[in-house]
């Protein structure tokens, strides 16, 4: 399996509304996180990848198969664990998982044997003969995962797998997901709002917002772009501070401030091997030009998935609308 997912100029429109757009995205096998707020286009992307939604333009491949033209092949090699409960009411856990195997083309007897194995794998030995709709959330989540694993898929798509679980259950589910990749060799596409979950298990991420792919790549690569970063607070003239820092090769990124107020908080990324002495020297020079210009706060900035996500989404946000009556001639 060379590529897990490939998107080429993929676009989906609902009328005039852009639901999803991506120029070129290639994801390698591993554990991939799909991040984005509500309405970001995650569901649209997954539906197009599963072949259930036709793209307005462009093409998508999953596991080397054209998602639109070879939808059946895609779905026979992918296991999908939906976010919401989606059971066949009246079936036991074992019958439900066996049915999933039969729908994947297995004989009834083979599907039942495989269902027993997968349920044991997921620690559902005792619950297997009970009605699925009567089980607590943790067991239902595992049953959903079991039906996704019944056909030994190359890729497992998990949509909010820790929804409704208590901390212990959540931790156990994440451990299970990690082991599926580590010990069973499954690739995993994890769609979640919970950045902590994604960070804990994912090697790479795709960040979506308002239908667009804002960033994608390995988590380590995305965080390494911010090595040697500091969070600083400044007082005095912001322009002077910015000037002296950028002259010394420091990259500055303003953090959100109160509406109408100048930014005071910045993330400063220092060039090369430079250390904090560079900042002190710069502010000493700024103080000579304007005594009120001071470095009032300094702390190391640790980049994690949450900060990456906030930064990427904030940088892609459109500027706030102008106040009413303002002339934009």
């Amino acid at each position, binding site marked *: 399996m060379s590529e897990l997912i490939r998107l080429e100029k993929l676009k989906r429109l609902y009328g005039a509304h852009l639901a999803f757009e991506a120029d070129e995205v290639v994801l390698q096998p591993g554990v991939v996180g799909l991040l984005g707020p509500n309405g970001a286009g*995650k*569901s649209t992307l*997954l*539906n197009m990848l*599963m072949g*259930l*939604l036709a793209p307005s333009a462009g093409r998508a491949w999953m596991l080397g198969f054209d998602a639109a033209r070879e939808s*059946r*092949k895609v*779905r*026979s090699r992918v296991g*999908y664990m*939906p*976010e*919401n*409960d*989606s*059971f*066949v*009411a*009246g*079936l036991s856990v074992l*019958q439900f998982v066996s*049915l*999933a*195997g*039969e*729908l*994947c*083309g*297995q*004989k*009834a007897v*083979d*599907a039942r*044997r*495989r269902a027993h*194995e*997968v349920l*044991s*794998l997921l*620690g559902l030995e005792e619950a297997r003969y009970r009605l699925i*709709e009567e089980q607590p959330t943790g067991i239902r989540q595992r049953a959903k995962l079991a*039906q996704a694993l*019944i*056909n*030994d898929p190359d890729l497992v798509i998990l*949509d909010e797998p820790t929804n409704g679980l208590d901390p212990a259950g959540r931790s156990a589910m994440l451990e299970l997901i990690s*082991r599926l990749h580590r*010990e*069973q060799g499954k690739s995993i596409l994890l769609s979640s709002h919970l950045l902590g979950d994604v960070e804990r298990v994912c090697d790479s991420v795709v960040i979506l917002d308002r239908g667009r792919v804002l960033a994608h790549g390995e988590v380590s690569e995305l965080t390494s772009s911010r090595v040697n970063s500091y969070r600083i607070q400044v007082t005095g003239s912001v322009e002077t501070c910015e000037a002296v820092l950028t002259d010394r090769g420091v990259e500055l990124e303003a953090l959100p401030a109160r509406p109408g107020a100048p930014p005071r908080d910045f993330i400063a990324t220092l060039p090369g091997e430079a250390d904090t002495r560079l900042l002190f020297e710069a502010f000493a020079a700024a103080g000579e030009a304007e005594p009120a210009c001071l470095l009032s706060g300094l702390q190391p900035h640790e980049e994690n998935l949450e900060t990456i996500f906030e930064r990427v989404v904030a940088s892609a946000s459109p500027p706030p609308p102008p106040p009413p009556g303002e002339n934009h001639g």
Partner: protein
Amino acid sequence: MEIDEVDLLPPKMGATVVDRWSISSAPEESRSPALSWWPVARVGLGLVTKRRIFKVFVGLGLINFLFFSAMIYFLAGLAAQLKGQRFGEGPLAFARNFIFTGTGESFRDFITSQNTVVMLLLAISGAVLVGNDFRFRSLTFYFSKPLERWQYFLGKLVATSLLVSLLTLLPCLALFIEYGLFGDTFDYFIESRRILFGILAYGLLVSVGMSTLLLGVAALLQRTISIVMVWGLIFIFLPIVTEVIHENAGGSDYWKLFDFWYLLQWCSNAFFGIESSLFSTSPWLPVAALAAWLGAALWAFWHKTRAVEVVS
């Protein structure tokens, strides 16, 4: 003294260590993709047949069947007893006016009488067969597997049609065979090919037609109480209203086209070769009306399943 777990195992017994993380690979796809509808049908049938109310309705259908079967037996016994007697033909002809006669009408009447039980059975089975799939998001589960929409529809249609056939087509065929076997020769089977065709055609029409209608109604309404109410509207209220308009209010025959029962009855007459007073000059009208009913049901079902996407 510390006791190790190993000490508790008998030496060299080859104790099995269960490694739950080592599972065999999944079996290859051994069923043709075109047959993916079968598990859907089997599970649907299983869900309905394990309900107690199903057994009640099958019991009612069975009673009716046994009644007809007993009449055939009674008639055959009567014919054997009166055979060759001076006044035998008179009482036999009299009896034939009231009991099962082996003609197309009698088989049609049997299926029609079973239709009432079928209607009740379907009204309460609709939610289990189809409605719950929408209510409990089972469609998400089904369509995330290599299953096409038409295969899902076919699976549900086969499950429902088998239920209906169990009460109509199959017992009617049994009555046909029973009646033929009680004759002096097997000529009845040869002479009654039209009747056999009528039984098969009418039985299939009732099975597939009522199942299609149920799939449409259940997909739209989903809950048992709503399905029962609309079912009552279609099979009880509409026939009464159309009959009243037809008989008393001077309405035209075209009102009959709104009566699903009437349309089935009209088709059954055509299948069995029984002459019908209405629409004899324009037979395409009831056929088109029936097609419109079924087309609307199909559209409703297709529309509702198209609205389902894997990710909600």
